[in-house]
């Protein structure tokens, strides 16, 4: 068997086996089987590293292996499934394996003592399995199936503490919101399949290049696929589920709702980029850009530490989506990988803080104070130095400060946006979104750092009981902090200001396959990005610096009062604070009418249609049979053929009894009708 197939099969199925073991016997195993899931995921990590090392040794940008088998087949209809292994797959497998391993290890302590500990690990394994399905899929079929399965694991893990209504609601909301996107995704797949007759990426690409689907249909197919991404990657207007998803345990938030699953939408768009039309792309760019900016403006007024990070995730995903739209799709993937590391790290840091807070509150016997509210923290850097430094490093990365990883990819995205504007001479709004979000990002990240870790503790009593988290939780922090340093992404080059390196060498942009050269060529895109690189970098450094400075003035030095400014900008502040009232709006214009419609349907169906109409028909028949009975008995029998015989009278009587509802009569009636029909037909 091919070595890549062996490796990927193992990577794919080991977590599934772990899931099976955990769900059925996990509880009875020593340590409730946490080592089963953790072992499986560590094995996938080793295998992924091996694949990755092989990729680096091979250093071939065109590396591609495709494995396919027939899953089901009728005479002319066939669905194949299989794996596509190229450099993008290998990098993504490694990203998933790293973060998933980190979450497994982190959870050993974070979830210790939970009443459903073994189930938790089962779900984590299920997630890893499904996520790897998305990564490995070589066709829309396996992609879509894995897509739904990550949705399931996300649902189960968000609602893991299902005793809380808020958690159960959040799980449901996530699943249903994703389904809205999936409707578009599904229609997109059907449009492609109808035109091309296959679900596999390779066939679809060939079909599109051959012009089997063009124009508005291709655009619609692309928008359909993008809708799937909008759902999964939580882009406006389907972003509403992700902040609620923070109800899940924090390692889950790090793994699923920050680093990997929510990036699946971006990953899909990277995969299908060559078939996207210019119209689709520009829509994608605006949705992404808007989400990046819009989510950032909400993040600045959050007080819950995980909520800040949730909106920050939305915003960063928006960046990636925008990069797809501007044509710099490999950059989107670059940012995906880099973001996964620092964002997971931020969540582990936040989890570490929350863990410490819980610990302290538990000691105080306080179950009222919110362990996630930054207003209850402050000054924690002295108590939690490892956590503190990990979060600072990650915040520097996300803010786009040189020497850290985020700088490389964010700068490239902004250069891509600037390049688009330069190429087309329009879409300046995207620049505003991009750079504006960069400024706000630096601001809210350091607002979070200063509020949580600096100044005097806001609640000294709690502060006294805060302790640094246990080693199992610190390992992921240290590892991922290291992976937020630029050099891991640029080797063999060591210039901190240039993103060039193994990544850019091994993940090359492919030409658009849309016929008629509607999209710019790779050369044009790269050329224009090259020219935009320096101005974009300088601008992004300036705005990031401004954001940081503002946060420093407001929350560290406290020279500028945030409260005063909140009052001065009251309407804007309210919009941000209330998340633009979008949840309330949806409730009013979508959910309520939807449930009302359902109630109406049920009412019409049961109380009007059935009770009134159908039963009315019954009553009419009853009345009719009564009339016939009377006519027969009183008119025919009594009046005309009176005395002919008892048989007729009996018949009349039995017809009259129809209304009694006794079943024998109905049977008789039916049999009678049948006989009449038989006679009629024989004549």
């Amino acid at each position, binding site marked *: 068997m091919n070595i890549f197939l062996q490796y990927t099969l193992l990577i794919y199925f080991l977590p599934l086996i772990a899931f099976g073991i955990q769900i059925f016997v996990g509880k009875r195993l020593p340590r409730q089987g946490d080592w089963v899931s953790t072992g499986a995921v560590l094995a996938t990590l080793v295998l992924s590293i091996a694949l990755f090392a092989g990729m680096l040794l091979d250093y071939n940008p065109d590396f591609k292996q495709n494995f396919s088998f027939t899953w089901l087949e009728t005479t002319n209809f066939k669905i194949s499934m299989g794996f596509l292994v190229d450099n993008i797959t290998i990098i993504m497998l490694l990203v998933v394996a790293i973060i998933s391993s980190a979450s497994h290890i982190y959870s050993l302590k974070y979830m210790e003592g939970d009443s459903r500990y073994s189930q938790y690990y089962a779900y984590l394994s299920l997630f890893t399995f499904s996520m790897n399905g998305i990564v490995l899929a070589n066709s829309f079929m396996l992609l879509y199936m894995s897509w739904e399965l990550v949705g399931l694991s996300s649902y189960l893990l968000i609602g893991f503490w299902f005793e809380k209504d808020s958690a159960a609601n959040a799980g449901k909301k996530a699943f*249903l919101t994703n389904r809205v996107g999936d409707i578009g995704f599904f229609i997109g797949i059907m449009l492609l399949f109808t035109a091309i007759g296959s679900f596999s990426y390779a066939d679809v690409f060939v079909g599109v290049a051959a012009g089997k689907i063009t124009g508005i249909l291709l655009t619609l197919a692309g928008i359909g696929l993008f809708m799937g991404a909008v759902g999964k990657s939580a882009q406006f207007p389907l972003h509403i589920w992700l902040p609620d998803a923070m109800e899940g345990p924090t390692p889950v938030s790090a793994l699923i709702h920050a680093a990997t699953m929510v990036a699946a939408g971006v990953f899909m768009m990277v995969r299908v980029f060559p078939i996207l039309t210019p119209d689709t792309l520009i829509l994608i760019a605006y949705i992404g850009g808007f989400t990046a900016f819009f989510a950032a403006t909400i993040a600045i007024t959050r007080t819950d530490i995980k909520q800040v990070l949730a909106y920050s995730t939305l915003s960063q995903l928006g960046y990636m989506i925008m990069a797809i739209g501007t044509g710099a799709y490999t950059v989107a993937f670059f940012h995906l990988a880099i973001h996964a590391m620092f964002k997971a790290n931020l969540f582990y840091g936040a989890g570490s803080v929350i863990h410490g807070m819980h610990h302290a509150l538990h000691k105080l016997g306080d179950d009222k104070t919110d362990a996630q509210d930054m207003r209850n923290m402050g000054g924690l850097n002295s108590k939690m130095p490892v956590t503190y430094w990990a979060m600072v490093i990650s915040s520097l990365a996300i803010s786009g400060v040189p020497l850290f990883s985020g700088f490389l990819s964010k700068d490239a995205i902004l250069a891509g946006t600037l390049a688009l504007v330069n190429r087309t001479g329009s879409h300046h709004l995207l620049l505003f979104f991009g750079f504006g979000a960069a400024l706000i990002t630096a601001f809210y990240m350091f607002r979070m750092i200063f509020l949580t870790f600096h100044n005097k503790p806001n609640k000294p009593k709690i502060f006294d009981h805060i302790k640094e988290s246990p080693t199992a939780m610190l390992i992921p922090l240290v590892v991922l902090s290291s992976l937020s340093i630029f050099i891991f992404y640029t080797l063999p080059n060591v210039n901190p200001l240039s993103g060039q390196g193994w990544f850019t060498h091994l993940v090359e942009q492919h030409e658009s396959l849309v016929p008629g050269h509607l999209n710019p060529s790779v050369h044009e895109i790269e050329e224009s990005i090259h020219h935009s690189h320096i101005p974009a970098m300088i601008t992004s450094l300036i705005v990031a610096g401004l954001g940081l400075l503002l946060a420093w003035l407001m929350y560290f030095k406290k020279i500028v009062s945030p409260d005063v400014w909140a009052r001065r900008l009251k309407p804007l502040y309210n919009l941000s604070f209330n998340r633009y009232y979008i949840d309330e709006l949806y409730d009013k214009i979508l959910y309520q009418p939807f449930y009302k419609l*359902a109630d109406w349907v049920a009412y019409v169906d049961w109380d009007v*249609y059935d009770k009134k109409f159908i039963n009315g028909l019954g009553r009419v028949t009853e009345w009719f049979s009564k009339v016939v009975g009377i006519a027969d008995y009183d008119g025919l029998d009594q009046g005309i053929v009176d005395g002919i015989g008892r048989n007729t009278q009996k018949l009349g009587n039995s017809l009259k009894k129809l209304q009694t509802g006794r079943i024998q009569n109905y049977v008789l009636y039916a049999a009678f009708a049948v006989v009449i029909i038989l006679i009629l037909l024989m004549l």
Partner: protein
Amino acid sequence: MDLNILSLLIWLPIIGMLAIAFVPREKVDIIKIIAATATGLQLFLAILLWMQFDKTTGSFQFMERYDWIPSFNIFYTLGVDGLSLPMVVLTPLLSFLAVFVSWNTKRAVKGFFALFLLLDTGMMGVFLALDFFLFYVFWEVMLLPMYFLIGMWGGPQRVYAAIKFFLFTLFGSVLMLIAILALYFTCGQTFDMITLMHTAPTALNGVLWWGMSAIKVIWILLFVGFAIKVPVFPFHTWLPLAHVEAPTAISVILAGVLLKMGIYGMLRVNYGMLPEAVWWFAGALAVLGVINVIWGGLAALAQKDLKKMVAYSSINHLGYALMGMAAIVAVGAENGNNYAAAEAGMSGAVFQMFNHGTISAMLFIIAGVIYDRAHHREIAGFGGLAKQMPIFAGVAAVAFFAGLGLPALSGFISEFMCFVGAFPVFRTIVIIGTFGILINAAYFLRAYQKIFFGELNKKYSDMPEINGRELFTLIPLAIITFILGVYPAPFLNVIRETISGIIEHVATLGIAPGIF
């Protein structure tokens, strides 16, 4: 085969029924064991049949043919093909499990199981009969025990529900009977279904009755007859009531087997004997399918009673099958001779029929498990049961997620095929139908959350976990759902040739010009 395996399949339950007749009514255990043995043997034979079945041909196999009423050309003809085989296996499977579901029946045990076995014979007969008269007889045989099983062992409104069920179905049977007789007299006085499939299209060609095409008239009669069983909107209102009132085991049979007879009948009779009209009616079928999907789904979302919700979910789920059936017209030249789409839709419909059988059976058993403990089915009246009954919550999750079409469970792939098949021809209709997958998820997740999540309802803090017998009725169905969801090929291979045969039949006989 000389064994007459098909006859054996049909008459085994009757033998069981006769045996039960001789057992004194207080020996309930013996009665139950007889019922379990009869259905168990039947299941064993059905599995044997599945394994012996020749997948490479689309024609009828294991045929049996004897004279019955020669003067009217009535024969006792049986046979099985890829269309009936899945149902022939599903019927004894669900019957066997249903015996265990109703293990604790208290009232009139003897009568219950005797009637139940009679019902079993009727159902098996419908799927195996190839003589129209025989088909009709079995169809009616099934009706009576069903009436009594709902009317005597059901819930508080059982009599009303039973009469409604009976009148609806009787109405359908009468229409069907007229159609059967019309076919008999216009197509050479034969009830032989295989012959009719070949003679009816030409014999009816150009015949007008009261100015209407005879083909269309007969199609409508048959369609309404079968549509009541499916049930297709607007003939569906007997279903929720019947389900709510019926005892659990009967709901299982009703949803799992009886509803399938509608779709089976359409594919066997309407598609087989009136292929021309398929072209005429396919658009309407697709529209009705979508109405079923959306209407049934929305109604399910609003239900407060768990069983009623599951009942409406049947209407919703079988809508997908109707859409898939409509996809057959993709083979038309105007649709680009798209055989792939036609096969996807038709196989999807048959697959959906089977999957709905296993999934809705699970859902009804689950509703029954809850009802047996709490004596009510109010969705909002529970809460937090996942904490109290984790195993039950897990099994229920499989059923609920299968119901909402989660990949890796069988319902997903059949729904997917129905959509993909119908899409090239009925694009707008199918796009409207895709909202069904959202509504589906909405009502299942809503119910699951209300029952299993949240704080544990204090009233049920001592509710016992699902017991071994109940698990035994659910696990086989869950395993089938899972296996066919991961690897559907074994199922699709069995039906493949028959489906291709039907498509070919409709494609070649259906587009003769000048029919209407």
